[in-house]
């Protein structure tokens, strides 16, 4: 199998697995128990919390373990709104966020929150000036993703963070800044002090860690309410017995990411660039979606004219190559990827899109085989197509 779907999920790193293993059956005790078995489990969690804090350049009591980025995003947005004493609070986000933001925002809107959903430029990047223009007296929260899951575009988080910090110096009610760093965490600097974020979400399974575990960074002093009750865990912000193996796993995964980031980024970027270069050169009517430079090093999102993405994806699957698509047919709704439409692509262009997301186990052989398979498949599908 040639797995090029790392934006969907990644395999578990073998060192992460090794770190996790004792916590399933040997060090299984509840980390909330005061006996020594419980304290051993707690030691594993403490270590992981330190690893995460190191990764985020924050304090250990600013790290909240959750069940994944979906929960982190829900907690961040809903928790900030619930804790606000503004009568009709206003929040700002972008139109290319993951559904784990956009659906939460929709729900908050139904509850009476005022919502502004910013457009992106044609290259898939949010314009900081546009963010600034939308800020109002009742704005309490701005949530912009660090990197997009479909097109990999990287948002100017530091620039927006600095802007908000400056604006906050001159206003009474603070604007909190949240970023969904789920896709970014494997590749980009997540120093929360330098990015100037108050809240940041990430997930284990996108960074060679386990599934079902995530982190929400909550800066000290942030006014936030839990939405899950039933225990004092996680500084009273997230009730429930801690997922010890998962937490140990995400801590280890993040520390490996940090250690190998430069080398790994260079490697995957080389593969990704080769794929883009060969595909655009050797396959007529193929186009890269999203900024060429401001994107994650492992992401290529390419539209192929006059054909449909799910049929490309399935044909690649028959050849043992796993990718994903923004096609309407694969969406479960009638509409193709809203992210691609937000770039100004036509429905037909979005319909023919394929996302390739590389990972650390891929090789140049994988790239060559994929391009060869693509050439054959695209040619055949265009033969079937009514548009010539």
């Amino acid at each position, binding site marked *: 199998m040639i797995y090029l779907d790392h934006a969907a999920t990644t395999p578990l790193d073998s060192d992460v697995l090794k770190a996790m293993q004792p916590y399933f059956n040997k060090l299984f005790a509840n980390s909330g128990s005061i006996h020594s078995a419980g304290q051993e489990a707690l030691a594993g969690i403490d270590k992981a919390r330190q690893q995460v804090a190191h990764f985020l350049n924050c304090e250990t009591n600013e790290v909240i373990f959750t069940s994944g980025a979906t929960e982190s995003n829900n907690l961040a947005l809903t928790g900030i709104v619930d804790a606000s004493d503004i009568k009709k609070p206003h929040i700002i986000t972008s139109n290319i966020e993951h559904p784990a933001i956009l659906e939460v925002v929709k729900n908050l809107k139904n509850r009476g929150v005022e919502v502004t959903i910013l457009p992106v430029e044609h290259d898939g990047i949010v314009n900081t000036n546009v963010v600034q223009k939308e800020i109002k007296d009742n704005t309490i929260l701005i949530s912009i993703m660090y990197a997009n899951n479909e097109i990999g575009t990287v948002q100017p988080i530091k620039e927006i963070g600095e802007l908000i910090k400056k604006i906050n110096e001159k206003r009474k009610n603070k604007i909190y800044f949240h970023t969904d760093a789920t896709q970014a965490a494997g590749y980009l600097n997540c120093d929360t002090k330098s990015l100037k974020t108050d809240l940041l979400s990430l997930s284990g399974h996108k960074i060679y860690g386990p599934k079902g575990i995530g982190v929400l960074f909550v800066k000290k002093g942030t006014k936030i309410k839990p939405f899950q009750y039933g225990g004092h865990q996680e500084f009273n912000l997230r009730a429930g017995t801690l997922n010890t193996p998962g937490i140990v796993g995400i801590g280890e995964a993040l520390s490996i990411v940090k250690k190998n980031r430069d080398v790994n980024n260079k490697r995957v970027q080389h593969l990704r660039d080769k794929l883009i270069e060969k595909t655009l050169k050797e396959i007529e009517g193929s186009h890269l979606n999203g900024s060429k430079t401001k994107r994650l090093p492992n992401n290529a999102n390419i539209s192929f004219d006059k054909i449909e993405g799910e*049929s490309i994806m399935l044909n690649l699957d028959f050849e043992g190559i796993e990718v994903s698509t923004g096609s309407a047919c694969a969406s479960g709704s009638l509409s*193709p990827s809203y992210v691609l439409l937000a770039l100004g692509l036509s429905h*037909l262009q979005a319909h023919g899109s394929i996302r390739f997301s590389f990972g650390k186990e891929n090789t140049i052989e994988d790239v060559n085989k994929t391009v060869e398979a693509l050439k054959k498949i695209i040619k055949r599908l265009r*033969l*079937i197509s009514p548009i010539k």
Partner: protein
Amino acid sequence: MQYSNKVIGHFKNPHNMGAIENPDGLGQVGNPVCGDMMKLYIKVKDNKIENIKFQTLGCAAAIATSSMITDLAKGKTLEQAEKISRSDVSDALGKLPPIKEHCSNLAADALHRAIQDYKKRNK
């Protein structure tokens, strides 16, 4: 979501793929929202569909139903072919995933249009 083996079979090796030059009837359907599109060409002799071919831009469901409808319609009288319904096509393929309904309706619609087109030309 999962496709049946029959759907995958037709998707991998579609029957009657391509265009017919100077067809007696042409059915064109498309869904501008989702993007799937289909052209169905028929040749009619003695009130029977003597030859039928398709061109489709779409997913596995769209391509497999296109292929299946050509199998179902070939050799049929126009009256018989007109009666082939959307569900006949999906039944013949051993059911399609429910979310694929809009993709799989194209084929029967295209056949009905092609027959209409033939009738209009031969009024």
